[in-house]
């Protein structure tokens, strides 16, 4: 009777294993190449190069800017077309994609948003489209691989996009009292708990601004106000301390002119804890239009305050 040789069996298993590992490796390489190839193919097939006129005014920001700036009014006052990429929950990746589409020598109004810097990246909208350079930028700023994959996932179907649009949108209507879409404790945690993502968001945001400076844009950074209920605990919070430091660095580094716009009104200018209503937006828009008309050279950091 023939007895199986245990050594032979072991060798054949090793052969099986090495064959399996080789095939898996080849499959992984092939699939990786295929995925990258298809992504690039779709990227180039679907992305229409959009060129904007440098005479336009470009706007980026999250919901603060979206609800705080009346695009039509600003356009009328400036006699220029206003193109906006502002939107609810807009994240730093969105900012990088938007700034990439801004032409040289343009006027750019950019939000300095504490909420966008402190907010969990999972809540960021970040759907401005797939841009390898911008993804690389956030990754090199310290964004986690998981978050980069998430951004990739969010944008994998939006190769065809328009970063900016001039479509008007509804502003928050005036009301006698505030509405509370988010509970106050949420704002507590936003300001008072240190955020792991703050450093990379700040770094990527600064890089985005640097790119705009490299394009010789006139930059107007705008910080919108919070309601006093949020401001009461935010002013001494850790994240306010960090954002103030970033603000100082930006003002010094880029020689920004600091200015505060104080909005006076007998009626309520806020819609909720973090967004202005249509009255507040109108007042602010008139102020910023005046600044942009009177000074076409200097870069500004404008802090909006309500009295």
């Amino acid at each position, binding site marked *: 009777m023939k007895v199986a040789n245990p050594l032979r*069996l072991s060798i054949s*298993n090793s052969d*099986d*294993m090495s*064959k*399996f590992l080789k*095939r*898996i490796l080849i*499959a992984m390489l*092939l*699939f990786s190449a*295929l*995925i990258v190839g*298809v*992504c690039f193919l*779709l990227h180039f097939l679907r992305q229409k190069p959009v060129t904007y006129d440098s005479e336009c005014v470009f706007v980026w920001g999250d919901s603060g800017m979206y609800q705080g700036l009346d695009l039509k009014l600003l356009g009328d006052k400036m006699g220029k077309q206003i193109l906006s990429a502002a939107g609810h929950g807009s994240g730093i990746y969105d900012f990088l994609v938007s700034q990439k589409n801004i032409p040289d020598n343009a006027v750019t109004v950019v939000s300095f948003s504490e909420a966008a810097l402190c907010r969990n990246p999972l809540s960021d909208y970040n759907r401005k489209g797939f841009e390898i350079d911008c993804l690389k930028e956030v990754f090199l700023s310290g964004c986690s*691989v*998981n978050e980069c994959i998430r951004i990739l*996932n*969010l944008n*994998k*179907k939006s190769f065809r996009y328009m970063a900016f649009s001039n479509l008007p949108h509804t502003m928050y209507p005036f009301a006698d009292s505030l509405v509370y879409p988010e509970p106050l404790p949420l704002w507590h945690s936003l300001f008072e708990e240190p955020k792991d993502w703050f450093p990379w968001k700040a770094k990527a945001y600064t890089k985005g601004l640097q790119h705009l400076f490299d394009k010789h844009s006139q930059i107007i950074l705008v910080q919108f106000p919070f309601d006093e209920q949020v401001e009461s605990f935010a002013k001494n919070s850790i994240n306010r301390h960090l954002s103030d430091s970033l603000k100082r660095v930006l003002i010094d580094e880029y020689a920004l002119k600091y200015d505060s716009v104080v909005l006076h009104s007998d009626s309520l200018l806020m819609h909720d804890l973090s967004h202005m209503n249509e009255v507040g937006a109108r007042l602010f828009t008139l102020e910023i239009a005046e600044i942009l008309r009177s000074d076409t050279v200097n870069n500004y950091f404008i802090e909006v305050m309500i009295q």
Partner: protein
Amino acid sequence: MVFNSIPFVLFFVVVFFVYWLLLKKSTKTQNIFLLVASYFFYGYANWKMLPLLIVATAVFYFLGIGISQSESEKKASILRALGVVLGVGILLYFKYLNFFIESFANLFESMGLHTNWHTFNIIMPLGVSFFTFRLISYVIDVYNGEVEPTRDVVEFATYIAFFPCILSGPIDKPKFISQLHQKREFNYNQAVDGMRQILWGLFKKLVVADNCAVYVDQVFSSHTDQSGSTLLLAAIFCSFQVYADFSGYSDMAIGVGKLLGFSITRNFNNPFFALNVADFWRRWHMSLTSWITDYVFTPLSFQFRRWGKVGMIIAIIINMVVVGLWHGANWTFVVFGLYHGLLFVPLVLSGAFMKKDRLSTNKIGLPVLKDLGRMLLTFALVVFGVVIFRAENIGQAWEYVCGMCNRSIFTVPWLINREYYIPTFVSVLLLLLTEWVSRAKQHGLSVENCSVVFRWIFYSVIVILIVYEGGQPAPFVYFQF
């Protein structure tokens, strides 16, 4: 740590290489390593639940030995009963206690009796419904002489905690322990088949289930504002979502098992091609239905055998209510089980219950008209049941069904947008088509007999769909059970 996550990939790569390259000479060492890996996997989700698993495993291990060493039948029977009570007790305490307290309190309130009962702050251990069923079946099978009690505590503990199956099954019977006892050799064909099955599971979960989930979640959360046709489409998508989600997980678990040299029980056999409801349950969550059939239905039908068909119907309805309740502590699951139990009644009365019909196909390989009709009818009944299954409460299920059954069912459904519905419909069709073609095989991607070129083109299409059309990752539906 879910299968479709980076931590799991890293974990499994380490397990695979240590298991096959460093420990291949000793089965015992491989088992010890598998046990440690399984406890790490389980503890990674919530380490606080690990002691419960370890203590329960130890108790049932000794119960098994106790049963086999009992000198009298009575003593063995007492130990078996103790095991069943303990297993069911764990399940009742962690999963159903609050449900029963709430239900009784509500019942008394409705009768005008005020109770001061409070629910407990109990965290349900992950996979409790799966590992308790393994524990219970072990003591029963040892008592019945179906398996020899193992003296190797590592083998037993690995069977209970085996990481591919502990969170969502399949629920292997105790005969699985014999695989842990045998020497395992790395087999190229088995490993490749495992990889294929994992790929197919990923497609089902990430492309079909997660894309369907987007629509289903939106429609179910706003069902009162939707048209009948939208509600119907969401119910159909929900059926595909639950199937693709759970069978996708099972495929990945079985694939991982194959990579480690194990043969894990099959859990789904193309349930949407079932010709009647009995056939559907023979194909859906097969490891659970097989467990319930062995340990609940068979003893019950034996008890009720004197009552003929009526006894059979009662046994089936109890059986299906247990199946429903197993899914969760909610009256919707009880009604879901009851609904499916009632669907068996015409089958029992007509004698079609035990008959295993074979699907007939025409010359081009499609089902003949009669069988297609039966398949569609079964599918429609299943879709209706899924509404009860998915609803948060009976009221919502009722509203949903009423919303579906009106004239608006003939309108064009809301479809989110073109970017959404085209890939979702295509992926569902691809799932059905692939499973139809490979219905006689173990899984959809059993393409070992096809040409190399076809195989690789098919793999590439699946990979591209997973990467490019995969929805936003959602948690596995069956993790909650």
